[in-house]
């Protein structure tokens, strides 16, 4: 500028470009902008939803007394079985005059009559007087006053005497509302194998500043529950609370030390509620982590798409960028402006994703909770709360994803020459690296090497299959690079025949450009990962079906009341199960007693099994490492069979000796064999029922498998069983198989949804990419129109080109899915869960996926072709 004295403001070119150029494009093309933000929002939403639902499913595990009595300072519990209440006296003696309170708790599972298969209720027996006094002390009144109707607590128990009446029960508002219960109503429950009638003595409102009262909690006075369950004098744990006030810390330390001494002496566990929660929720850590990583899939495909869309925007606005360059805007300023666009897109999409994710999480939490319930522990939460930390993390993730996606287009934009040098129709775009096939091979080799990295142990013992995930990442990347090689064969496939437009499309595919490669790479990543998940699910299903076929040999299966869940601790008493086994028409039975025990700091199941002794019809487990002898009577004495997840978790195998904590002291057993178990990931040790009954002084059983005599119809036997033993849940072999497969599909429902989203996003990306390609070729299209091609012809050419790209993406995706499936089955799954699966490919599913992808791609490409067929060659964007 001539006038050096011209007043200057510091130029903020990036802001200027944003304001005057990019923002205006957003306003001019609201649909495209909304689509891009929507895609990103969907990716962020899925990511956030799974995280929130995971969190909700975990936070649903709480100590059931917490919402009623507040959090304890310490918990004392046995490593296995129940405690004798007499321990309380010893505790009080040990702590002497120190100000500490002990709350004995008996916690059992039960089932509401009529809802036997719908879910468990958690029966908690507590010393209501002690809790009442503690609550009242905090409120400055006595228990009687606090619970009176006149106290201003309309939901509290009406009559103080009702607290101690046998059969008096308290439930939360959620429990009462679900069953339309009011104070004074009857509640019929199955406790163990007995049906008991309780009376609702009060409906407890959710306390402020504490966890909400779980919808499955039934609170009963301790002696009352002990008597109803036949567990007189026994408790599950003792919760310890220190008094507040002067010298509290000193006193607490003193008491804690005395309790620790006692716990060591009696081989009990002393832990804080936080320890307890952490150790329980850790069990499902691998499951949740896998789901979270899977949820990143939609976002990853979203990244491809944003990259494509921003690149298309570069192509579309190339002339405009060239003008800016002519006016003196530097490449760096162009790059910054494009990155600002990616950032803004990430921000808008991320914020939208948070709202959408919150809604989606509510839908997902049910499915995740159901799986956690089934496989790990009981969780009660069905409601999701938006954690701001999670929201901020997801927003940040969305913005970073968008910036990563925007980097290449921004770089490409900055390399645009000034308008003087710009030649129309210049084909650019796509990653230059995507053209190097040796790099593709190198990436696959890296992927294969990563698959051999052993699992990384996270704090708390959870195994993280880092190598597996890295292998999957490099595998997808390698396939993306190599699929450029597929375009020529695809072009040859499509180029035959006399259809001019198909030939034109094939010639375009043969001269494969960067955008073709990038689009096919996005599609291949989405299809590869989805198809790999389908392989995993199919392998799981095949393995499970064969496992079920192997282990379900009996005609009828009988279990204690309550839904099939790992948390179901109901049991059938000895007289009852003996009567069942002795029913006319029953040839024999397998019985299983299940106990939860603490083994090396982690919770496992100890099963006491007794098998039918007919050499022709007996339960033969599916062996991973078979014992020296199998068949009736081979599990006895100090021998044990362990499940495969146990073997993987604890690194113990055949010949090792285990020290199992039991109420009658530590028992040493030798591992004789390892069997496959897909029903429980925590690990199971199977011993003979005779041993477990003796160790736990418990003759109850959890489940029975009945073998019908020859000629006896299992259905008739089932009817008889149901009429004579209403307390138990009975299913025929066929029903149990169907039920198992249904539960299996329910477990994988979340993954199906995630896969579908990823593929939908990828096909959407194909449409966007084609629109960019056609825009780039507008001069060519004008030529085609000039020599007589109709709009339909151009749409048809676009369709064939779209189909060609989809074919390449599909072939690459399905190809890499075999490798990804192998990683999931041979690396990630064994490392995370300890399950060996039989590799199975769902060919039918692959066919359907291919047909749907190609059909959708053809339709999308046709639409894009129709819309762009009339582009003027001299149109300036």
């Amino acid at each position, binding site marked *: 500028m001539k006038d050096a004295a*011209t007043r200057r403001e510091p130029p903020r070119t990036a802001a200027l470009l944003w304001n005057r150029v990019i923002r*205006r494009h957003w306003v001019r093309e609201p649909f495209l902008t909304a689509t891009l933000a929507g895609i990103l929002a969907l990716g962020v939403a899925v990511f956030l939803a799974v995280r929130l639902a995971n969190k909700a499913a975990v936070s649903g595990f709480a100590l059931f007394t917490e919402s009623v009595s507040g959090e304890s300072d310490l918990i004392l519990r046995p490593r296995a079985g129940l405690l004798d209440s007499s321990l309380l006296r010893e505790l009080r003696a040990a702590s002497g005059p120190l100000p500490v309170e002990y709350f004995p708790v008996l916690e059992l599972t039960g089932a509401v009559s009529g809802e036997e298969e719908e879910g468990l209720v958690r029966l908690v027996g507590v010393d209501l007087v002690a809790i009442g006094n503690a609550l009242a002390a905090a409120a400055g009144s006595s228990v009687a006053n606090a619970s009176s109707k006149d106290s201003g607590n309309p939901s509290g128990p009406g009559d103080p005497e009702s607290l101690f009446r046998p059969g008096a029960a308290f439930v939360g508002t959620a429990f009462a509302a679900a069953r339309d219960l009011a104070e004074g109503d009857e509640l019929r429950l199955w406790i163990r194998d007995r049906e008991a009638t309780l009376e609702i003595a009060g409906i407890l409102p959710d306390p402020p500043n504490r966890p909400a009262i779980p919808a499955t909690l039934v609170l009963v006075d301790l002696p009352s529950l002990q008597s109803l369950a036949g567990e007189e004098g026994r408790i599950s744990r003792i919760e310890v609370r220190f008094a507040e006030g002067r010298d509290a810390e000193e006193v607490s330390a003193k008491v804690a030390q005395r309790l620790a001494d006692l716990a060591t002496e009696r081989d009990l566990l002393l832990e804080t509620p936080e320890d307890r929660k952490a150790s329980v929720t850790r069990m499902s850590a691998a499951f949740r982590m896998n789901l979270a990583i899977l949820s990143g899939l939609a976002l990853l495909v979203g990244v491809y798409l944003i990259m494509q869309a921003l690149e298309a925007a570069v192509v579309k606005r190339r002339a405009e960028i060239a*003008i800016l*360059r*002519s*006016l003196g805007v530097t490449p760096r300023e162009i790059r910054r402006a494009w990155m600002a666009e990616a950032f803004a897109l990430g921000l808008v999409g991320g914020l939208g994703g948070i709202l959408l994710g919150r809604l989606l999480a509510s839908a997902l939490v049910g499915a995740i909770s159901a799986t956690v319930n089934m496989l790990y522990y009981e969780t009660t939460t069905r409601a999701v709360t938006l954690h701001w930390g999670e929201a901020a993390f997801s927003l940040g993730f969305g913005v970073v994803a968008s910036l990563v996606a925007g980097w290449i287009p921004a770089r490409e934009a900055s390399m645009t020459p*000034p*308008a*003087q040098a710009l030649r129309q129709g210049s084909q650019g775009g796509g990653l230059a690296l995507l053209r190097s096939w040796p790099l593709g091979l190198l990436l696959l080799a890296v992927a294969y090497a990563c698959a051999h990295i052993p699992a990384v142990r996270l704090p708390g013992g959870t195994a993280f299959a880092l190598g597996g995930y890295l292998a999957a990442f490099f595998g997808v990347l390698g396939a993306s690079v190599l699929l450029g090689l597929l375009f020529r064969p695809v072009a040859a496939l499509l180029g035959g025949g006399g259809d001019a437009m198909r030939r034109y499309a094939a010639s375009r595919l043969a001269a494969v450009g960067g955008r073709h490669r990038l689009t096919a790479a996005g599609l291949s990543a989405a299809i590869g990962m989805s198809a790999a998940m389908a392989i995993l699910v199919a392998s799981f299903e095949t393995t499970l079906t064969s496992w079920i076929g192997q282990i379900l040999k009996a005609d009828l299966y009988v279990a204690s009341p309550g839904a099939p869940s790992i948390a179901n601790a109901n049991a059938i008493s000895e007289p009852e199960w003996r009567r069942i086994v002795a029913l006319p028409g029953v040839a024999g039975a397998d019985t299983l007693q299940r106990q939860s025990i603490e083994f090396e700091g982690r919770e496992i199941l100890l099963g006491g099994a007794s098998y039918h002794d007919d050499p022709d019809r007996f339960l033969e487990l599916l062996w991973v490492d078979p014992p020296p002898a199998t068949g009736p009577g081979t599990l006895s004495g100090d021998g044990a069979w362990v499940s495969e997840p146990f073997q993987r978790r604890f690194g113990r195998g055949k010949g090792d000796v285990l020290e199992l904590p039991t109420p009658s002291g530590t028992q040493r057993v030798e591992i004789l064999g390892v069997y496959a178990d897909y029903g429980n990931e925590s690990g199971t040790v199977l011993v003979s029922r005779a041993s477990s009954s003796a160790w736990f002084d418990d003759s109850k059983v959890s489940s029975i498998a009945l073998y019908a005599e020859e000629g006896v119809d299992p259905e008739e036997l089932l009817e008889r069983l149901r009429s004579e033993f209403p307390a138990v849940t009975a299913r025929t072999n066929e029903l149990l198989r169907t039920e198992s497969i249904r539960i299996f599909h329910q477990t994988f429902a979340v993954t199906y949804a995630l896969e579908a989203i990823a593929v939908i996003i990828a096909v959407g990306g194909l449409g966007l990419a084609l629109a960019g390609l056609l825009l780039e070729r507008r001069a060519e299209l004008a030529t085609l129109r000039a020599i007589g091609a109709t709009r339909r012809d151009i749409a048809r050419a676009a369709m064939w080109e779209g189909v060609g790209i989809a074919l390449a993406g599909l072939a690459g995706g399905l190809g890499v899915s075999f490798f990804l499936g192998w990683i999931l089955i041979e690396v990630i799954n064994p490392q995370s869960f300890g399950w060996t699966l039989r590799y199975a490919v769902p060919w039918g599913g692959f066919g359907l996926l291919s047909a749907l992808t190609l059909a959708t791609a053809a339709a999308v490409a046709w639409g894009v072709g129709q819309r762009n067929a009339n582009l003027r060659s001299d149109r300036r964007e």
Partner: protein
Amino acid sequence: MMALQVSSVTKSYPGPDGPVPVLKGVSLSLEPGERVALMGPSGSGKSTLLNCVGGIDRPDGGSIEIAGEDLGGLDEEGLCRLRRQTVSTVFQFFHLLPTLSARENIEFPLLLNGVAESERAARVAALVDEVGLAHRASAMPHELSGGEMQRVAIARALAIEPRLILADEPTGNLDSTTGEAILDLLAALGERHGTAMLVVTHSPQVPRICHRTVEMRDGQLLATEKPA
């Protein structure tokens, strides 16, 4: 100081049988306020010379100075600064930013240079008047005719008060009447602002408004003619 000094510039492009020389020792100078028409057949090297002068291409030999600044000593950032502050270009296809109105297009280079708002407003208003578009200043590019778009492009080129305007077929996309009007406008504004102009053209009308015409053939300037 000369507005433009091109001295013995050479430039070759790689070809299948070795380098193909496009500029063969071209020398040319423009006084401040001087208008020169650069004519010649297609492939003679006009565009290459224009690109070298505009800093888009680098010559293999020789030197180019604009307002005393040697382009050979400038990096990419320096060339951007040159385009932002010293040299403007007027294109055959106008190249207006489609998202900005006529007034905003004219204002844009001033914004890039950080010119204060009051001065910016005054300068844009004056230019809009000068090119006769006061009544169309708020129109978007797609609402303007070809002649109007080229007027906006000329005003935009003048906004930064450049030492040199490079015009690449400025009437090539206009009908003859509009083309004449645009040439008159260019000449008038060039006189008023004292801006030198190098106009690349095939049009026989352009020399009418130029102080001289140079013809290029096979990468060499043949003769310098005074306008008829």
